[in-house]
């Protein structure tokens, strides 16, 4: 199945685009999508564990199932200043 992934903040910076389409097995969870993204884009490895995921504009857990045509948003934390 295909899902569309919307990228925010650092994700957009790292991948250089606002969205990507990802092909997944017919049965796949949010976690499987994240793993697939890290395999394709290793620079995301450090970001993914602390990222909030929304599916179809709604907060989603890592084990939630994805469905064909789902719109997924990857939302990294943003601190607003210096550390």
């Amino acid at each position, binding site marked *: 199945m295909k899902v569309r992934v919307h990228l925010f903040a650092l994700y957009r910076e790292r991948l250089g685009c*606002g969205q990507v389409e990802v092909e997944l097995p017919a049965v796949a969870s949010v976690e499987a999508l994240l793993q697939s993204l890290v395999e394709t884009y290793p620079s995301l490895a450090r*970001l993914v564990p*602390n990222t909030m995921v929304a599916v179809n504009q709604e*907060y989603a857990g890592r084990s939630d199932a994805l469905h064909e045509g789902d719109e997924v948003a990857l*939302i990294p*934390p*943003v*601190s*607003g200043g*210096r550390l």
Partner: protein
Amino acid sequence: MSNARGPALSREVKVVVQTLTLRPEQVKRYSRHIIMPQVGSKGQRKLMEAKVLIVGAGGLGSPSAVYLALAGVGTIGIVDFDRVDLSNLQRQILHHNDDVGQPKVVSAQEAIHQYNPDVQVRTHETRLTSENAIEIVSQYDLVVNGADNFPARYLVNDVCYLLGKPLVDGSILLFDGQATVFLPGKGCYRCLFPTPPPPGAVPSCAEAGVLGALTGLVGSIQATEALKLILGIGQSLASRLLLVDALNMEFRTVRLRRNPKCPLCGDTPTVKELIDYEAFCGLKPVEA
């Protein structure tokens, strides 16, 4: 703290309107508010009796403070330990050229009084810490978060939940902004981001940059939400996260929910008091 386990659920800020009457010049000053049925004279008096704490007199705290002051919010607290730096002036509208080197709370107080001398400004020239946060935050009805680092973000989240204070949260980086409202018991920052990113994984504004005008956009959204909560009008950003992509000028909202497993506001909480947030965020070794 009324009840560490279950803070009072507040759908709006409870501001008691005393028999305060508006002076003629206040009727004129706030006439564009008072004419709206959603505000009116009673709403304006609510604003004038409200006490709002702004954490950080920086990029987000500046526009929030200015609009809350202009709106006539009676008491504005500012907590910030920093001094004005030339690099702040690209976005922090509370501070001016002559303020470089001044404590930010002093500069902020002067600016607010220039905008509206009616506002009582309480300055807290200190870093907000686990030791002083309860004492400071408990003086206010509502908190606007303009914190610029993750330890402070988690600290502000936790203290607001534990004290039952509504929190208007905002954050920015590069061309991206996020804003939401956390009402105690309806989800919190830890529900969205249970664990902080490891140090260095998310660059800061100093490292990556931020568009100055974006801070005005997000800070103004925070001020709007704070005013709505005080007035008890409209639909707040509670249970929604607003995502601002200024580069493409797209606004999206994502529906949020309280995480029953949240260590702070979940069904079996493990965080029942303030902790060491620097250690939590991996910025110093956890004490044994």
